[in-house]
């Protein structure tokens, strides 16, 4: 549904090819595209406007002639601005010199306060701290029970005694002192920012506990309203930081930028799933990529770097260049990719993969079967699959506990992959030549490492192979990662 920003900007710059500096009019056109991308990501209209002004002032006069790809250059500027807008001061919980440190969670209904309270407690506990969870949401039916169950599950003491939220919170401080807990996490009822009575109550709770960290919990799916919510909560209770929840969905999460811009307070954590350990420190760079629809390439590379060893990287490089590819290589890749976690998650981080494929039901056991088949081949067979005749097939099937049909399928699919790789290799060589020429002339070169996947090879029934076109941004995006 979303075109990535890189795709759109590529379109604009195709028209500008061969020209030098960006004129003001070009920048206007670019700014419109950026605005569209930000709005699709739910960045507040007004926040988007001021953000774009900053990007514009940097982009005007940028020398695109020398840039290897002007679209990517602009994206780099946008990306950097986003990172600096989302990051800024590093987010850390304030620690009270006199324990307990009090953390107050506030937000709209359904933003995920209760779950985040438990997640935060779990995180603090794992760091050797001693949290107390306080259920001060007396509004929603069974909210207190929900937190009690969660507290039990992570083995953290829970407190919720008192007639009203203020009484509960005040008594909780005494309870923390009695139990010797050094962190108190207060979960409050969800409320609308325009509900004066409930906002006054929240203010009273805040006064009563004198929280050291008053955190706004906000849903990544929130639309334009995020700004009003942030401003109103800040006015009422003074927000120190933000927890962004439900970023495991496909919302682009522009609310993060909106909230950060109007509050100027750090986004501390991000909720990444329903389970209590799906909670992490907020990464501005990753969020920036996400808002721009670039996929979570950073996390992917981080993961890949951890799992692929140097030999494999060298080999991958060689494969890319020559297009020669054996079953042995495939086995290595398969194993490394498996190590990176569930394949579905890995794919989820890749930009430009069509939704149909992201949603494809992937049976991880199938990977094990493939591994078994290749392992049942001799070293020679792995290098030259053509050797594998009927009797060898039966042997491999028996050895791997599969059928000859499965072996045949694997070989056939491997053949298709080899074909693809060859084409990539050819393109790689072309690219190399082009790159050399390009460096002399200083003209626009698009060395799109993964581009060949986009065009030629037939994915036979994969749906829309053209969607891989977006991967084109990838190769260039590599620049953002700063080849040092």
């Amino acid at each position: 549904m979303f075109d990535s920003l890189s795709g759109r900007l590529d379109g604009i710059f195709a028209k500008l090819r061969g020209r030098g500096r960006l004129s003001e009019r070009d920048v206007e056109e670019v700014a419109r595209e950026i605005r569209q991308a930000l709005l699709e990501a739910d960045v507040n209209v007004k926040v988007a406007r001021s953000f774009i002004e900053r990007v514009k002032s940097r982009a005007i006069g940028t020398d695109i002639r020398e840039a290897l790809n002007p679209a990517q250059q602009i994206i780099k500027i946008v990306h950097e601005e986003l990172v600096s807008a989302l990051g800024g001061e590093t987010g850390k919980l304030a620690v009270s010199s006199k324990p307990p440190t009090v953390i107050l969670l506030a937000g709209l209904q359904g933003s995920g306060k209760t779950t985040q309270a438990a997640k935060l407690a779990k995180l603090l506990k794992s760091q050797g701290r001693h949290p107390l969870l306080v259920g001060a949401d007396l509004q929603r039916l069974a909210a207190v029970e929900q937190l009690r169950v969660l507290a039990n599950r992570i083995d953290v003491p829970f407190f919720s005694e008192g007639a009203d939220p203020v009484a509960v919170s005040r008594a909780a401080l005494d309870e923390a002192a009695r139990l010797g807990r050094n962190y108190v996490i207060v979960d409050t009822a969800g409320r609308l920012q325009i509900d004066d009575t409930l906002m006054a109550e929240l203010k009273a709770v805040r006064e009563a506990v004198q929280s050291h960290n008053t955190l706004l919990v906000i849903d990544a799916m929130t639309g334009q309203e995020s700004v009003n919510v942030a401003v109103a909560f800040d006015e009422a209770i003074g927000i120190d930081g933000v927890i962004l929840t439900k970023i495991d969905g496909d919302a682009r999460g522009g609310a993060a930028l909106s909230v950060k811009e109007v509050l100027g307070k750090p986004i501390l954590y991000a909720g990444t799933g329903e389970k209590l350990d799906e909670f992490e420190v907020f990464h501005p760079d990753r969020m920036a990529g996400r808002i721009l629809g670039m996929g979570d390439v950073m996390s992917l590379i981080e993961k890949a770097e951890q799992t692929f060893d140097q030999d494999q990287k060298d080999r991958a490089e060689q494969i890319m260049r020559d297009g020669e590819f054996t079953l042995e290589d495939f086995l290595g890749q398969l194993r490394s990719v498996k190590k990176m976690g569930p394949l579905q998650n890995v794919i989820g981080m890749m930009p430009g993969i069509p939704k149909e494929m992201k949603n494809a039901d992937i049976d991880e056991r199938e990977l094990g079967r493939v591994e078994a088949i290749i392992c049942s081949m001799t070293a020679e067979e792995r290098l030259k699959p053509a050797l594998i005749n009927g009797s060898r097939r039966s042997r491999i099937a028996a050895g791997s506990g599969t059928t000859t049909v499965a072996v045949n399928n694997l070989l056939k699919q491997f053949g298709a992959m080899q074909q693809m790789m060859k084409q990539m290799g050819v393109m790689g060589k072309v690219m190399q030549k082009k790159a050399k020429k390009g460096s002399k002339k200083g003209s626009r070169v698009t060395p799109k490492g993964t581009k060949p996947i986009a065009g030629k090879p037939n994915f036979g029934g994969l749906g829309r192979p053209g969607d891989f076109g977006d991967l084109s941004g990838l190769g260039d995006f590599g620049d953002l990662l700063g080849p040092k």
Partner: protein
Amino acid sequence: MEMLVVFVLILVVAGFLGAVTLRRRGSLQIEQPSVVPSTAEATPDTAAPVLRASLKERLGKTRLSLATYLRNISGRGIDESVYEELEEMLLLSDVGLPTTTKLLGAVRGKIAATQGATGEDAVAMLRAEIEDLLLVGVDRSLKTRDGAMSVWLFVGVNGVGKTTTIGKLAARHTTDGQTVMLAAADTFRAAASEQLTKWAHKTGAEIVKADEGADPSAVVFDAMASAASKGIDLLLVDTAGRLHTKHNLMSELEKLRRIIDRNPGALQEVLLVIDATTGQNGLEQAKQFAETAEVTGIILTKLDGTAKGGIVLAIQAELGLAVKAVGIGETVTDLIDFEPHEFVSAIFDSED
């Protein structure tokens, strides 16, 4: 068998890594951009706080007053700025750019055909466009069968207010003298069934539930059997909130549907609950849930805030799914029918 897909993906991941490594080493001898300023020098640290303050100030003043846009526009003749302001107003209501552009395109067309049109005319035309969009032959009634059990299945992402909505609907129908049963098929979230049980007590509805972590399809199965034998009029099935991107959770929903469908014709409504503060992701939610669970209508919750829930315009324009009820508060009676005129007024006639 999606094996080839998997293979290709592995290849892509590996190939991608190769490309990055290649690039990092400079094996392709690509010229590095020399003009790109470094992050450090580029970040206008000094300017940012000033900008922030003024932005906040501005938002503080206008956050409740989309009406000021309209007042501005109304007194003027038609120029590009009128469209820009109308666009901004719609965008601020979460209508989203594609639908906004479509609506304004229609207004432009009409303005062009009108001699001496004013800003006021533009506003009126836009209003009419939106009402037309909302009114196109849709049935907003919540369906029940006479003399036989009706089942309504509630779906949606986490935290949109499914359980509360069910509570309100249970109250409405028990007050009408119908027998209502609630099925607590959200067995995932801690204390979800307790929450629904409290609603059952409050409204005098029956409830079928299971322990946390139990199979939701078992709950639905039991509820279907129990409701049938007790001659229940209306069975409301609560499900766990799930992000539409979680494939296995979405298939679970399909399964629940199949179980209900064993009693042919019983399933009268599959209602997608959407939070009015939801932004553009709402459209994707609606698409995915519609595909998996064959959604029959939308319930828009939390519309008592300042959020306008404009995403339902996009949902109706693109998917033809209509809003059937609106949640406006936390008490039992805070669920009302969706009135297109009222909704449009909410977008256009915000008070200061």
